[in-house]
């Protein structure tokens, strides 16, 4: 059999090929693979599968260099989500994914469907989603468009997760002009299962039926995968019909039905229909199982009349799954779906012949030689060269930047930083997320890492997402290392042993040498940290072409870290807990100032080398901290990140606005350091803890060779935050600090009425 054009198909021309995003070389490859001119349908299929988003054609060789193994890894990269064992027969599945371009065009639906997609990636493994996180990047909140995007994305994330009954427990939000027209919306999901419930998306068993399950197929988001593989330009506006609308109610039913189906024993494989819809889900399942498949598009349950095979194959309608069932069990499968009021139709079959065949009734509209469809995809090794701009910025002597007159009062600087939207409290956003449904959230948003209890066990997971794109821009390898180290530090501060990561690589156009350099170096840095911290990569996502007329976004390899908290009592809060507790610093202060939030916020400067990151020291710090926490000696722990030591300590005093505590801190021991580097520099490898047992904390630090020193005492609710710097004392009443930290984003968002009234959706 061979595919023949349908009546009415457009003629394959060079222009049509170009419109499908294929280069001439790629098209020649396709013709060589088929031994003939492709049909229009085949061209559509290949353009989707060979898009950057589906094929990883620029990133795969480098992804292979990431460390992926550890005894606790049950499933590494290659599946819908990674899976690690947590002991007690339990396993967690987790993955992070981007929905940047859809969110730039339609923030509400873009973010909502991003959450929907990552939920499906996790429950398709057989795991019940127990937590969501997100990592967001926007331009400056001074722009009305940015406020609109921010409000829409937050509402989209909230509405979808809230309806699903999966708590959104954490994440991060950064505001920086680098993301002005190309926001980043990365969503992470974590699911729980028993180890034996793990199911893979591998088509098996000749004669087994292929069943489409869930929502009906419409003309939503056709070519979304190739859309995600282009620069954002003004032409993106013309591509608007590609947006997809999410239906979390249907997804909730699909979740319950899928888990019931997986546990029923009637199916052998299940895969969500995500990017490139039916095409990629069926082709990937077939390739993984090394079998052939045949699919009849006329069997597909449709929402709209008159859809062509091309449209059916490429539709990105949401809330759909593709299932390979055991032959003869079709009735049982349909019955389970009917219970949840969902459709299930047999649309194809696993076949022995090594082909990927699509028919429209009797007519073959696409036929490829089996796995070559996936394996013949071109791979590129683009040139890499560091950006001269980054080199120049890094070389700048930032200590030479003159202080502003206001900085004579370091508390002015502290308040300014606490009010910087990137540092300020994100409660305005996370108050819109149901963070307590499932009654398992021991620590929700607002702390270092979220802690979520695992029912059926004494254990919890500690979860964090992190990345400082500015560091990665200035020095990609160091920035990559820091992204992993900071995520791990956050997990450890909450009492968790870091176990594995998922990652979302948000970069610009890889064909530009400076972007590919960033990509290669950032991955190298991530690998170094993952090896030192024993946190292998179990999966992730690559989002390239995050560009806009203003250039590429900062290279942003977002890390989603999962750690295990052994005992409920190890879960450790961020805020100071008791007046009279000793405040201790683990790690060492330095004179580093490069790449800091201080330079950006106070001086509008992005320059200097980012702080050094010694992964062995980070490992020792985490080991020491966990040792002290597990000994019951730590009342609170918070790592030093954006804004440096002074911001960290202030946050310990004020993050919990209902229970603020003052503190007296003595930093005279470091009076040799430039004051602003000491207070606001972002030296890595530091954690501030409060403890009733400073000797035990010191002992833990010494045992792991980590510098540690008592720096102060927690005060009462009526005490201020007092810094003794040797040259003098600086007394900050908590109310002023709290107002800067807590009121900034709410007041910005209520001042410009635009976002509040942004078009409302269901």
């Amino acid at each position: 059999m061979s595919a023949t054009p349908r009546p009415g198909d457009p003629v394959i021309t060079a222009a049509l090929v170009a419109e499908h995003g294929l280069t001439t070389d790629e098209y020649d490859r396709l013709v060589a693979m088929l031994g003939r001119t492709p049909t229009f349908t085949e061209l559509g299929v290949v353009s989707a599968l060979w898009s950057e988003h589906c094929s990883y054609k620029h990133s795969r060789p480098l992804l292979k260099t990431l460390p992926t193994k550890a005894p606790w890894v049950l499933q590494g990269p290659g599946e819908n989500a990674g899976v690690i064992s947590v002991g007690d027969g339990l396993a967690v599945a987790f993955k992070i994914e981007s929905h940047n371009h859809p969110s730039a065009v339609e923030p509400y639906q873009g973010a909502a469907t991003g959450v929907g997609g990552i939920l499906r990636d996790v429950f398709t493994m057989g795991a019940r989603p127990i937590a969501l996180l997100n990592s967001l990047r926007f331009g400056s909140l001074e722009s009305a468009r940015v406020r609109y995007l921010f409000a829409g994305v937050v509402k989209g994330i909230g509405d979808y997760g809230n309806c699903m009954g999966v708590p959104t427990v954490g994440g991060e939000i950064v505001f920086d002009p680098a993301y002005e027209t190309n926001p980043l919306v990365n969503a992470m999901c974590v699911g729980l299962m028993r180890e034996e419930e793990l199911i893979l998306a591998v088509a098996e068993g000749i004669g087994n039926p292929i069943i489409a399950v869930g929502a009906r197929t419409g003309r939503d988001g056709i070519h979304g995968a190739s859309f995600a593989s282009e620069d954002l330009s003004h032409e993106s506006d013309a591509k608007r019909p590609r947006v997809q609308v999410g239906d979390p109610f249907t997804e909730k039913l699909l979740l319950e039905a899928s888990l019931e189906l997986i546990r029923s024993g009637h199916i052998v494989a299940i895969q969500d229909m995500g990017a490139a819809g039916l095409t990629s889900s069926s082709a990937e399942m077939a390739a993984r199982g090394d079998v052939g498949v045949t699919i009849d598009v006329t069997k597909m349950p449709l929402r709209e009349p008159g859809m062509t095979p091309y449209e059916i194959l490429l539709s990105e309608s949401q809330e759909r799954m593709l299932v390979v069932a055991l032959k003869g069990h079709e009735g049982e499968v349909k019955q389970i779906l009917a219970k949840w009021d969902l459709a299930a139709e047999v649309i194809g079959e696993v076949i022995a012949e090594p082909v990927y065949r699509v028919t429209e009734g009797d007519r073959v509209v696409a036929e490829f030689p089996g796995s070559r469809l996936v394996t013949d995809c071109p791979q590129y090794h683009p040139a890499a060269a560091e950006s001269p701009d980054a080199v120049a910025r890094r070389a700048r002597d930032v200590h030479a930047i003159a202080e502003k007159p206001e900085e004579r009062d370091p508390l002015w600087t502290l308040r300014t930083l606490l009010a910087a939207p990137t540092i300020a409290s994100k409660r305005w956003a996370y108050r819109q997320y149901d963070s307590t449904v499932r009654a398992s959230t021991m620590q929700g948003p607002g702390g270092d890492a979220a802690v979520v209890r695992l029912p059926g066990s004494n254990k919890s997971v500690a979860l964090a997402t992190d990345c400082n794109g500015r560091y990665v821009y200035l020095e990609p390898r160091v920035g990559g290392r820091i992204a992993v180290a900071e995520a791990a530090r956050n997990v450890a501060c909450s009492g968790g042993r870091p176990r594995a990561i998922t990652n979302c690589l948000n970069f610009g156009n890889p064909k530009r040498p400076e972007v590919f350099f960033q990509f290669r170096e950032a991955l190298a840095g991530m690998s170094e940290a993952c090896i030192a911290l024993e946190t292998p990569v179990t999966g992730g996502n690559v989002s390239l072409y995050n560009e806009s007329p203003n250039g590429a976004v900062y290279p942003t390899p977002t890390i989603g870290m999962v750690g295990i908290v052994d005992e409920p009592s190890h879960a450790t809060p961020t805020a100071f807990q008791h007046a009279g507790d000793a405040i201790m610093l683990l790690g060492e202060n330095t004179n580093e100032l490069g790449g800091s939030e201080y330079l950006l916020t106070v001086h509008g400067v992005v320059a200097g080398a980012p702080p050094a990151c010694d992964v062995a020291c980070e490992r020792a710090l985490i080991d020491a901290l966990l040792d002290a926490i597990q000994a019951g000696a730590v009342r609170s722990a918070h790592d030093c990140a954006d804004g440096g030591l002074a911001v960290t300590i202030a946050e310990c005093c004020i993050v919990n606005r209902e229970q603020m505590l003052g503190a007296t801190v003595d930093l005279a021991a470091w009076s040799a350091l430039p004051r602003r580097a000491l207070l606001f520099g972002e030296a890595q490898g530091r954690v501030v803890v409060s403890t009733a047992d400073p000797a035990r904390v010191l002992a833990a630090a010494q045992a792991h060779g980590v510098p540690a020193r008592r720096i102060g005492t927690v005060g009462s609710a009526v005490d201020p935050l007092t810094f003794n710097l040797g040259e003098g004392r600086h007394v900050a009443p908590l109310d002023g600090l709290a107002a800067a930290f807590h009121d900034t984003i709410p007041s910005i968002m209520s001042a410009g009425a635009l976002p509040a009234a942004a078009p409302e959706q269901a």
Partner: protein
Amino acid sequence: MTRYRVAVHIVPRRGLLDPQGKAVADALRSLGFPGVEDVHVGRHIVAEVQAADAASAEQSVRAMCAKLLANPVTEDFEIAGVNAA
């Protein structure tokens, strides 16, 4: 200047999924309205505006729709009526 009451309909764009409409249609059928073939749920917005005349009232509400009231990516709008208030 006169006060006008301008009504607009803002409806989900054809072809996009309309989960609200679908849920309502399903519910109506199961409530014993078998004749229901399709339902679309949109918004009905009434703006009371000061304007020189009906035409300029309508024009300014059109501008509001384009700028804020309707989501240009997912919705269409139509002016449903202009009346002196």
